[in-house]
């Protein structure tokens, strides 16, 4: 495997407001360092998905900006730098597409106007399926897969896209221990090859085992740094409950009333 130039992600003073005028994310600034596996940890409803969707450009932030490898998100996406593995809940599993079709969608950005795959596209799709161990399921309709197989199919799509930056939204939800281990091994390999990986998770046990860096999030960035430094009891209790959180909540309510 050839290695690539790692890219970083900079989130600068980001605030995201939803239609109902609620602040989902406030003054969030952090940096995902190039060539690391970084975990984004926080409670449900704490803004993990919001930050992810902002980084991927699915949400327009009210304030702030995001830079990926020195480029705006839109430009980075046009250059196929960013791959995204969605949460299982965000996928319509009844949709009439096969595993092979889904992985091929990772190549659309490289194809011509009619999206006719070249032999290179086919080869990369087959290699990606091979790498996640899904070759034998390539013709299955996606709804016929188990939870772990579903995750691996979408991971293969990200591999086929060859994005330098890979974002995985809750990759371990609904996945058995064996598959989790398998995904982690693959992520470590990808880091060695020079990919920058950001995963959102509330699976605290696995974070310490393979994530180089951790960002703690509850409606704003509460702490970030190496997993060793960041993963302290004090920080975690601040993120998942306790006094500082309440004071932040207070600030939020104040802010949204003002808005």
């Amino acid at each position, binding site marked *: 495997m050839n290695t690539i130039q790692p890219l970083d992600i900079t989130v600068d003073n980001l605030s995201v407001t939803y239609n109902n005028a609620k602040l989902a994310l406030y003054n969030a600034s952090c940096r995902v360092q190039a060539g690391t596996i970084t975990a984004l940890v926080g409670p449900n409803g704490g803004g993990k998905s919001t930050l992810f969707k902002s980084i991927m450009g*699915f949400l327009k932030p009210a304030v702030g900006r995001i830079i990926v490898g020195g480029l705006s998100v839109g430009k980075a996406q046009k250059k196929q730098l960013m791959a995204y593995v969605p949460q299982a809940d*965000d996928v319509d599993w009844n949709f009439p597409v096969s595993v092979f079709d889904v992985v091929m969608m990772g190549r659309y950005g490289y194809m011509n106007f009619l999206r006719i795959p070249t032999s290179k596209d086919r080869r990369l799709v087959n290699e990606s399926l091979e790498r996640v161990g899904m070759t034998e399921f390539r013709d299955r309709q996606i709804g016929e897969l188990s939870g772990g197989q579903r995750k691996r199919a979408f991971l293969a799509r990200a591999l086929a896209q060859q994005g330098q930056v890979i974002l995985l939204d809750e990759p371990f939800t609904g996945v058995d221990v064996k598959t989790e281990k398998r995904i982690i091994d693959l992520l470590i390999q990808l880091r060695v090859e020079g990919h920058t990986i950001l995963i959102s998770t509330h699976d605290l046990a696995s974070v310490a085992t393979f994530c180089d860096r951790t960002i703690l999030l509850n409606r704003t960035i509460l702490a970030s740094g190496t997993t060793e430094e960041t993963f302290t009891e004090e920080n975690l209790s601040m993120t998942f409950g306790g006094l500082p959180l309440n004071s932040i909540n207070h600030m939020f309510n104040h802010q949204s009333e003002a808005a």
Partner: protein
Amino acid sequence: MQTNLINHVIGAIPLWNWLVEPLQYGFLVRAILVSAFVGIVCAVLSCYITLKGWSLMGDAVSHAVVPGVVVAYALNIPFAIGAFIFGFGATVAIGYVKSKTRLKEDAVIGVIFTGFFAFGLVLVTKIPSNVDLFHILFGNVLGISQADIIQTIIAGSLTLIIILLRRKDLLLFCFDPNHAKAIGLNTQLMYYTLLSVLALTIVTALQTAGIIMVVAMLVTPGSIAYLLTDRFDYMLIISAISSVLSCVMGTYVSYYFDVSTGGAIVVLMTILFILAMIFGPKYGIIAQQFTKGSLEDLNQIADIE
């Protein structure tokens, strides 16, 4: 002698007679060909609309074209142009209102399309034109004029060409618009492409099915197909067959029993839908009953794997 015999044998089959006899009338041949064409166009788009969950949007656009048809007749321009402008305009209005207010999409769609439709009703009763409201509402393929056939064919061909060229992007847009965005594709353009072909299809089906029935032609064939298969290419084929069959047979039924053509077509489609729902090999009600137990076992095995 030989052909005479064959004719005699074939003539003895009542169904054959039933199918062939009306073909001596030019207007009926025309009606059957036009409705078969409309059936194909609707069937193809129907697969995308069903998967995207845009049935209500289809209903909205079909109602919103009414003022366009009236204005077009009053200004003496082709009805298809007026209908397309108002149909597409309504979708733009829906998108705008949704982004500027806190209302949910279904409420916005309801407000906008009834507003357009009501405006059309006001116009049709006030502007002197030879628009027959009944024909717009319920279709009139048996009495379709040469000019209307030409417009139908142009709008339908345009729809088929656009879908043929953009079919992969449109499917990706229906399945996973976030991924489309993540790989740098223009999802805004995909959204408006799908809306334009929706408006074009409605223009195509207007003269055959009528405004009230168009939505059935846009939803039912795709739904039938979706109940029967897990593969998109099969879905297109099943959708097209069930749609064309209903359109052609509906026109016959309409001729023989002197009933509304649009009505007959949609009744046949609905019958096919009910059959698919009950007897579908995998997702049919009967099949589900039989396989429920064994599927659960299989899933457990798959999970242990």
